[in-house]
């Protein structure tokens, strides 16, 4: 058996597998506002990240996503409890001094804050926060940059543009800081609209020059050399890709929304996927690029994806069978435990074992002596 298929052979898992696993978890989270399965998803995601993240810089991004999620919950509670009249219930927690607002606007400022409003905001915010954490987990386990390396040939140009944007964006920030420091030396202020212009001009000019340099470098390194597509074949590919992606989007919306009729979701998703796949195959054929060390897709990838799909399916089935367990009739009641959904979510913790362990880099070795004879 090729070592790629072993779950014990240390290697980095294909980032696509992590993203699909995380998408499965977020899909499950999107169908419930019951805090029990939501917190379970959060715990499962955090557990897998702790078990399988690498030492790379992006692996530390999970903490930032967690903070963002907490912020989302807090903001949600503040807004809903303090500003909205619609969600208030009978259990008054405390009363704040209030300012009068026009009748019928559905808004208030201060006034009574009820337990129902706070809990409802907490649960709704929690749902969104859990989805954010799923994205954070995917990013920590398989970086978005590495994922871009694996985009299909038909989307190659888009992938390159994204990679460059990810590189240039932090550079713009550094440039702006440097130029602000320089303006202090000239005695000119960098505040206000004029100051903004003074900083923005050199930054933008620098970015423009940078992109021209980059284009020259890419051209002289053979970018675009192997594209021999005709205009028609390019148009067909673009059409297929856009049609397919549109279909996928509509299908996913239909599936997750739950209020639209069922013919809308799954068939649209399937049709869209087929179109997009056709576009990818056709577009991949026209670009003569090859790929260096593409990440393998082997048994562990399939297992990880499967353990992400299970919670989504379990959740969808549970919604069909017993919707009252997932959408609470009253927020103040003790939330029930949806057994099927929770079992499904627990399956998503399996990648902590099923995904291969991260390879440990050998301690910084000394620069190798240049070996000339090997090139010839």
């Amino acid at each position: 058996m090729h070592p790629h298929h072993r779950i014990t052979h240390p290697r980095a898992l294909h980032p696509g597998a992590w993203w699909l696993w995380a998408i499965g978890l977020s899909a499950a989270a999107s169908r419930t506002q019951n805090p029990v399965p939501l917190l379970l998803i959060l715990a499962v995601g955090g557990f897998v990240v702790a078990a399988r993240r690498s030492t790379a810089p992006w692996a530390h991004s999970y903490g930032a996503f967690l903070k963002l999620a907490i912020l989302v919950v807090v903001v949600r509670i503040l807004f809903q409890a303090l500003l909205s009249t619609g969600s208030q219930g009978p259990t008054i927690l405390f009363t704040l001094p209030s300012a009068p607002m026009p009748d019928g606007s559905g808004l208030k400022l201060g006034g009574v804050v009820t337990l129902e409003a706070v809990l409802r905001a907490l649960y709704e915010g929690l749902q969104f926060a859990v989805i954010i954490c799923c994205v954070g987990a995917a990013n920590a386990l398989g970086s978005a940059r590495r994922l871009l390396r694996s985009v299909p040939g038909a989307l190659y140009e888009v992938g390159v543009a994204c990679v460059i944007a990810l590189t240039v964006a932090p550079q713009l920030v550094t440039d702006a800081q440097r130029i602000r420091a320089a303006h202090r030396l000239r005695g000119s202020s960098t505040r206000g609209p004029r100051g903004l212009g003074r900083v923005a001009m050199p930054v933008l000019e620098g970015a423009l020059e940078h992109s021209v340099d980059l284009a020259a470098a890419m051209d002289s390194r053979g970018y675009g050399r192997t594209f021999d597509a005709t205009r028609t074949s390019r148009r067909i590919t673009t059409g297929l890709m856009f049609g397919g992606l549109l279909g996928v989007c509509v299908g996913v919306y239909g599936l997750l929304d739950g209020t639209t009729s069922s013919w809308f979701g799954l068939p649209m998703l399937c049709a869209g996927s087929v179109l997009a796949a056709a576009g990818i195959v056709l577009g991949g054929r026209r670009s003569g690029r090859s790929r260096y060390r593409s990440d393998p897709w082997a048994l562990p990838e399939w297992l990880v994806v499967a353990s992400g799909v299970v919670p989504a399916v379990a959740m969808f089935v549970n919604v069909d069978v017993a919707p009252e367990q997932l959408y609470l009739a009253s927020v103040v009641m003790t939330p029930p435990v949806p057994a099927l959904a929770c079992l499904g979510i627990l399956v998503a913790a399996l990648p902590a074992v099923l995904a291969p362990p991260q390879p440990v880099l050998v301690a910084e070795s000394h620069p190798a002596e240049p070996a000339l004879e090997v090139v010839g």
Partner: protein
Amino acid sequence: MITFEKVGVQYDGAPAPVLTGVDLTIAEGELALVVGRTGSGKSTLLRAINGLVPHFSGGTLTGRVTVDGRDTRDHRPRDLADVVGYVGQDPMAGFVTDTVEDELAYGMESLGLSPAVMRKRVEETLDLLALAHLRERPLAGLSGGEQQRAAIGSVLTTHPRILVLDEPTSALDPVASEEVLATLQRLVHDLGLTVVLAEHRLERVVQYADRVVLVNGTGVVSGSPAEVLADAPVAPPVVELGRVAGWKPLPLSVRDARRQAGDLRAALADLQPPSRTPEAGELVVRVEHLAASYARVPALQGVSTTLARGEIVALMGRNGAGKSTLLNVMVGSKRVTSGTVIVDGLDPRALKPAQLLHHVGLVPQTPGDLLYAATVADECAAADRVIRRPPPGTPARDGAAEPGTTLELFDRLSPDVDPETHPRDLSEGQRLTLALAIVLAAKPPVLLLDEPTRGLDYTAKHRLVEILRDLAAEGHAVMLATHDVELVAEVAHRVLVIAEGELVADGPIADVVVASPAFAPQVAKVLAPQRWLTPTEVAVALADSRIPR
């Protein structure tokens, strides 16, 4: 390998052609050095080799350029990617991916090579350029020399026969540029690559070159280095020394010169090198036990020194040793964690920007950072306005900056520039003098310069040397952070060497640089243990000694 036949290049909208009637042949396996003043068309010549001129740049190319039998007229740069590897001035600007290994593979992916071939070539190139220990590292985190090596590696993987480099060492410290040049020499000697490179600091490269191509105004002169340099307007110090001493053939390396220098050393033995100690002026900068850090990376660790009026001090050291940090501390842009900084009697960090510029001026590494207006005249007028506005809490200064002061100053530093020019269209040297004029307009007693010679040709550098000497004579205290040992040999009175944030040397220039392998100028290396630093000093001393007293 490379042939230019009656090549002329004119860019759209330019009044005159950049190159005309260029006839040039570069044979296989040569290392050709392209020299010439800024704006003379060096980059155009280099970019014509792989077709970036005119396919990418626009403009009109007349005549014919053939590379390995391919005419650039009907081969775009991408069609020449397997014959010519082109490395631009700033390696970071040319990187497409974000790790070393991916960058090496990028060109091969574009050519559609098979994964097995790519894997083999990446491993070979990692070893060839000693990058194997950096393979997974992000490109942005590498040092300047490593980035330049990665850029060279990234074009070598397509196995080109020609490597074209535009000023590969201009941003590097002396040691890192040695590393890059040694790599290039190995590629020429062991792999038989043809290398064409442009470089301002001839002293670093000329000894390795088989051919020197001098681009002067429009045409080119090409020949062996000794021939071309015998009467070229640009020459490294060792060649100038050879001219002074009348050596034939002219030496190109320190080794050549050292072997011919026995008589010269004997003639100079009884002569005294001129004293470099300036008249002691008032102390205007005092820093004591400075410490500063970025996050948890220490940048300065207990630096103490002073700076007096009339003194030019050079600050040297590796990239990242803390030179820029020290300058930033002295203008208050960087907070210190401990220690004291007194500049012109004040704490620079406590000053408002409008007050600061009357006490200390810093010309940053990229002088363009200071500029934002659309014309030179506007830029100067803006500088005048800032200075005229009295700093809050102080009485208005009388006549400190009449309208036109800055422009007048700029005109003195860099004559014959149309004030309606856009600052971006100035040459590197002119942009530096514009930034210098803006900073000097407020007459700060302390002037700091960060890497002022980056991108400057010999003429612009001579001009800078004169300007700095005048400023010191007028009573400014000048400190410059630089890698350029020859510039330091020309102007500095005192040298500070900084390593890992600590001051490892602080003394008169001759004491610090003469015995240093990295910081000694060429003349000092040739004439050591005597303490001569520049060809001019030697020439003046010899001329004086011949006059009977």
